[in-house]
């Protein structure tokens, strides 16, 4: 007997291999107490190495992982997404250092889990099979469950972790059920095979299975991107989680789910467009409306940012309907900009919370403009960008997004999106008003001493990136366009 061995192309999954190895190295080194201070810097170094590996593979075209089944593929789309995740993780590590030290959660496991989460997201981005997608999703989710509850002594952190765990497990169940139905319809878990089944003649029964499968997948992915009506966990979890983890959760995990959504809806389910376009358009509008309107009355900053992130997920859902390269490129562009903006916003809170009492409400920001001019400037840039005011990256991102939508013929949706974007001005600018125009009632605990250098570096980097992309967007747009070009 001679078994034919599959040809395995390890080069195609090199970024994922490097990320998993990096996380494991951090985990092992973190066991030794004397290296405790060095762990974050080791993590930064290893993340940089994996970034270099991914950059080197850019433009080498789609390379499948093995000749037997596709499972995973190395293409520009997955690589660009991986680079965004790595950049997000680097910023998260930078803003974590002082925050984690102040709360004595600066253990090796914290940084190891962060990198494991990135490897899971990278797996999701490269997956061309429902199994590898689910595997990546679980690697990401399990790391996040632990990270959210990392402040063991804090009741809010535990509450957030439990809520995210219970609902996340539920969402995973929905995704698995959907996968089972899709397998039943097409006899395979590969994206290509499912797309083939959709493309050919199909009976009513198969059609029903495919529709059910797609619907259940959308429930699960909708939970991850906090799409209304699966958004209820978002404010509670963001509020309870350690602030850098909330930053990572709101950018990385959401971006990973969006990347999968682009791949799935764009290259697997175009055949069901008649069914999913009305569904997604209603849900996207609802998501934008709920996120923006509820954010108006928030006074807790983390809850405000949570509702704002719900609203942004709604904007990013819109171009899926345009079903064009422009549409997908505008989502990728938006995701990159959104990662920088949200990490900046949560980063300011994390840096302020690193000494003394946590910075949680709008009142805590009062007088920040005179107390911490640089930090307040960063926060102002980020808020302007989130609101979409030129010359920030947020404006360019919204511009491309809505123009792709208009080109796709969805003018009404673009108008609705823009109107709610106007509503959002109120709560973003309110943060700026509190920082610059309200004096502090009493001198807060964070006023004394200097802020963490690493955190400030990360914040200045993201603010500069936001301004730079706002003025010169074409480079990044070209990258986003190149990324979606490799999608079938």
């Amino acid at each position, binding site marked *: 007997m*001679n078994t034919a*061995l599959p040809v395995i192309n390890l080069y195609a999954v090199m970024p994922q291999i490097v990320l998993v190895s990096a996380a*494991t190295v951090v*985990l092992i080194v973190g*066991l030794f107490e004397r290296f405790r201070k060095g762990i974050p810097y080791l993590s930064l170094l290893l993340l940089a190495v994996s970034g270099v590996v991914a950059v080197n593979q850019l433009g080498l075209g789609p390379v499948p992982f093995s000749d037997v089944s596709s499972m995973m593929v190395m293409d520009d789309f997955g690589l660009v997404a991986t680079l965004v995740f790595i950049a997000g993780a680097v910023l998260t590590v930078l803003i974590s250092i002082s925050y984690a030290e102040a709360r004595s959660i600066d253990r090796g496991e914290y940084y190891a889990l962060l990198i494991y989460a990135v490897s899971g997201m990278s797996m999701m981005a490269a997956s061309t099979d429902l199994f590898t997608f689910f595997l990546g999703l679980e690697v990401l989710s399990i790391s996040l469950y632990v990270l959210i509850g990392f402040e063991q002594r804090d009741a809010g952190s535990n509450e957030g972790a439990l809520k995210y765990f219970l609902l996340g497990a539920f969402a995973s169940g929905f995704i698995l059920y959907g996968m089972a139905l899709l397998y039943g319809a097409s006899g395979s878990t590969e994206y290509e095979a499912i797309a083939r089944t959709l493309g050919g003649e199909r009976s009513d029964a198969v059609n029903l299975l495919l529709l059910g499968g797609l619907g259940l997948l959308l429930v699960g992915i909708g939970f991850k991107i906090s799409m209304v009506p699966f958004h209820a966990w978002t404010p509670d979890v963001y509020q309870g989680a350690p602030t850098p983890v909330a930053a990572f959760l709101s950018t990385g995990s959401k971006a990973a789910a969006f990347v999968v959504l682009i791949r799935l809806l764009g290259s697997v389910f175009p055949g069901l467009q008649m069914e999913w376009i009305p569904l997604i358009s209603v849900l996207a509008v609802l998501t934008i409306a709920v996120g923006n309107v509820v954010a108006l009355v928030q006074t807790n900053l983390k809850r405000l940012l949570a509702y704002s992130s719900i609203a942004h997920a709604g904007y990013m859902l819109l171009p899926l309907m345009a079903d064009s390269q422009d549409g997908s490129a505008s989502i990728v562009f938006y995701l990159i900009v959104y990662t920088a903006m949200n990490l900046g916003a949560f980063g300011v809170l994390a840096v302020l919370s690193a000494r003394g009492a946590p910075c949680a409400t709008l009142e805590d920001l009062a007088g920040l403009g005179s107390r911490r001019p640089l930090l307040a400037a960063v926060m102002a840039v980020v808020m302007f960008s989130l609101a979409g005011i030129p010359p920030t990256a947020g404006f360019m991102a919204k511009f491309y997004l809505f123009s792709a939508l208009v080109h796709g013929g969805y003018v009404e949706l673009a108008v609705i999106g823009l109107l709610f974007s106007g509503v959002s001005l109120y709560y973003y600018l309110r943060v700026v008003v509190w920082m610059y125009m309200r004096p502090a009632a009493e001198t807060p605990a964070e006023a004394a001493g200097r802020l963490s250098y690493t955190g400030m570096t990360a914040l200045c980097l993201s603010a500069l990136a936001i301004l730079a992309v706002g003025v010169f967007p074409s480079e990044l747009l070209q990258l986003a366009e190149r990324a979606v070009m490799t999608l079938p």
Partner: protein
Amino acid sequence: MSYLPLILLVILVLIVAAVIVTLSSYIGRKKTSASKLASYECGVPIKDSARKNFSVKFYLIAILFILFDVEIIYLYPWAVVYGDLQLYGAAAMGVFFLLLVIGFLYEWKRGALEWD
């Protein structure tokens, strides 16, 4: 239609089971005593209720057991076809073992194997 015998069998089994239980509860003689009514634990006298908290350490041991249990499950089919897999099989299992050993080292150093 080819499943008809199976369905008949299931129905028959259900009927027989129901009849036997019903008959024995009507016809059978009942002599109760304290030890007869107690729940059966392999003949060992019952100490107290099973519904109580266990130390979290037991759960930790259970999880660690899984780590080494799953490895054995993978090893058997692998060993059967090892001759065909050659170097590829050795390398694949080597990576798998490396990750397991790292997990083992981690739990050892973290003190998960100490009872106190």
